[in-house]
């Protein structure tokens, strides 16, 4: 084991020694230790424990205030006055400031925290305004000082409004993680978000989860983050974002209930061609949404698809992706949009889509909310007949609607399907069971 260099300057060992040091080392009080060591000890404490040491003795009364690396974690229902007071007293850089369940009475205090945090070079901020006892509370608009926190490496905001960045906003040069969950943006929000992302060139992880762009009418805008490894975009409506090629992308989750009518899905997925893990809500389109896709997802190991098998075009879209992921090991399908099966396909239709690399490495499949109508059953039969190394296939039957095929019928049918993999096991469960196992 290599020892790494010490954080502090090392004194050379001197044969003569210092009798004072000796005496100190043999002393019977923690106070005999050098200040640096004491600070190191305090920095391992929670903020509460660290602050409580202030009442031990005079020499301890201000020690926590000058101890670097104390994490400012404030659980739900912390008193806002206490948070502000502790922040004001703390004289070091704030490495982490996290508070959850912020309630409306704390709003005036936050306007004081953010300028303080900016002044103290804060690196990580988590502000969550979810308060489950008070869901109707108004959204709070953050103080613009959030944009003065130029040393941020991580910013996670939940359920608030982001103000417009002031003139001269210098960007977040060190920001690697940006996560906005139920965050509202001001007028022309998509342009503002575009600018914030563009001015954070170190971004590795970006989550836009139900970000609200208030305009009805938005232009397309571009997420420019060349180093992105993780991307999550979840929203009810599509607000016109586009991505560029993401050469370092590893994980992506694209899930919008209502994609723009003119969104180019071939282009979108081509930009994500390097992903290892992908979750994707397949659009519901008239024709094959991935018609003409030519890229290959060589690194894709794990795919979660929200799709269905009710129309020939949705089946073709789904296969458009599956056929280009030869190394896929794990496939999870969640059936979306319960409606009538308008096209009926048979096993020959699927056999015509067969390529030698399809399902070649598939190890695990699950299908959730399955109605077990003929097209779904056909897909299951097809996978079982082709996946040579498959081990487990879980079917979670949606028995809540009257539309589904009765489970007994489905089970009898499933038992007849040939399996290409000698190790393949098929499990039939009810949807409620997904709660048990997840």
């Amino acid at each position, binding site marked *: 084991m290599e020892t790494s260099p010490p954080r*502090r300057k090392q004194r050379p060992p001197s044969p003569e020694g210092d009798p004072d040091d000796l005496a100190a080392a043999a002393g019977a009080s923690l*106070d005999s230790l050098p200040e640096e060591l004491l600070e190191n000890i305090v920095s391992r404490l929670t903020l509460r*424990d660290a602050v409580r040491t202030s009442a*031990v003795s005079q020499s301890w009364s201000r020690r926590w205030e000058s101890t670097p690396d104390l994490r400012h974690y404030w659980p739900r229902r912390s008193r806002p006055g206490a948070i502000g007071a502790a922040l004001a007293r703390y004289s070091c850089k704030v490495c982490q400031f996290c508070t959850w369940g912020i309630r409306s009475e704390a709003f005036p205090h936050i306007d004081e925290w953010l300028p303080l945090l900016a002044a103290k070079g804060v690196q990580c901020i988590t502000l969550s305004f979810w308060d489950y006892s008070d869901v109707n509370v108004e959204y709070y608009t953050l103080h613009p000082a959030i944009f003065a926190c130029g040393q941020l490496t991580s910013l996670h905001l939940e359920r608030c409004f982001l103000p417009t960045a002031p003139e001269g906003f210098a960007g977040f040069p060190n920001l690697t993680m940006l996560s906005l969950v139920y965050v509202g943006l001001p007028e022309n929000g998509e342009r503002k978000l575009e600018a914030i992302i563009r001015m954070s060139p170190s971004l590795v992880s970006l989550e836009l989860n139900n970000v609200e762009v208030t305009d009805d009418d938005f232009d397309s805008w571009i997420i420019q983050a060349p180093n992105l490894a993780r991307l999550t975009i979840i929203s009810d409506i599509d607000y016109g974002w586009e991505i560029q090629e993401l050469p370092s992308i590893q994980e992506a989750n694209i899930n919008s209930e209502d994609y723009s009518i003119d969104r180019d899905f071939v282009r979108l997925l081509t930009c994500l061609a390097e992903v290892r893990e992908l979750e994707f809500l397949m659009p519901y389109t008239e024709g094959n949404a991935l018609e003409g896709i030519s890229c290959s997802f060589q690194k894709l190991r794990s795919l979660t698809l929200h799709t269905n098998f009710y129309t020939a075009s949705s089946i073709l879209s789904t296969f458009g992706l599956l056929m280009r992921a030869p190394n896929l090991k794990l496939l999870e399908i969640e059936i979306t949009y319960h409606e009538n099966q308008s096209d009926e396909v048979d096993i020959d239709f699927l056999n015509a889509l067969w390529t030698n690399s399809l399902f070649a490495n598939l190890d695990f499949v699950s299908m959730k909310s399955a109605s077990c109508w003929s097209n779904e059953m056909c897909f299951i039969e097809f996978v079982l007949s082709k996946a040579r190394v498959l081990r487990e296939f879980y079917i979670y039957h949606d028995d809540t609607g009257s539309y589904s095929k009765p489970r007994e019928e489905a089970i009898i049918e499933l038992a007849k399907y040939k399996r290409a993999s000698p190790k393949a096991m098929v499990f039939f469960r009810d949807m409620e069971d997904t709660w048990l196992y997840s």
Partner: protein
Amino acid sequence: MAAATDDAGDSNEMIRVVSSDGEHFEMPEAAANLSLVLRHMIEDDCADAAGIPLAVVAAKPLAKIVDYCTKHAAKSSGLTIEEAEELKRFDAEFIEVDTDMLYDLLVAADFMGVEGLSKLAVQRTADLIKGKTPEQNRETFGIVNDFTPEEEEEICKENEWAFQITKPPSRLC
């Protein structure tokens, strides 16, 4: 002192060290290398038969440190999960010491630049502080309360929230 094991590294050479109170100890070179100070001394050819003098480390903590380094050097790279867990158990037992020994280890590990041991001793001290009242901490660590009652009250009032430790965290206020 634990017996030095043969698989402690590529080099089988034993390094001698001398405590402030004149006691001699031996450990394999790989173990000595876990101390930044000893490593530099070895690299500078200062390790000889007379032993490297460690002026501020007394025999009692030095024996522990030699024990620690020997154990950790023997299990340095490519640990299996079981070995890593065994080492964790060793650490946990190793650091179950009284506060006097803990202070000695803190100072000596810091002085000798044994990073793993420094972290272990610092974390142990922090763990002893956690969840205690100021009075309990004074008792544990031999600290004299030099506040006047007024000063103490004032300090507690300044950060009242931190002293409400008897209330359950889930309490709604």
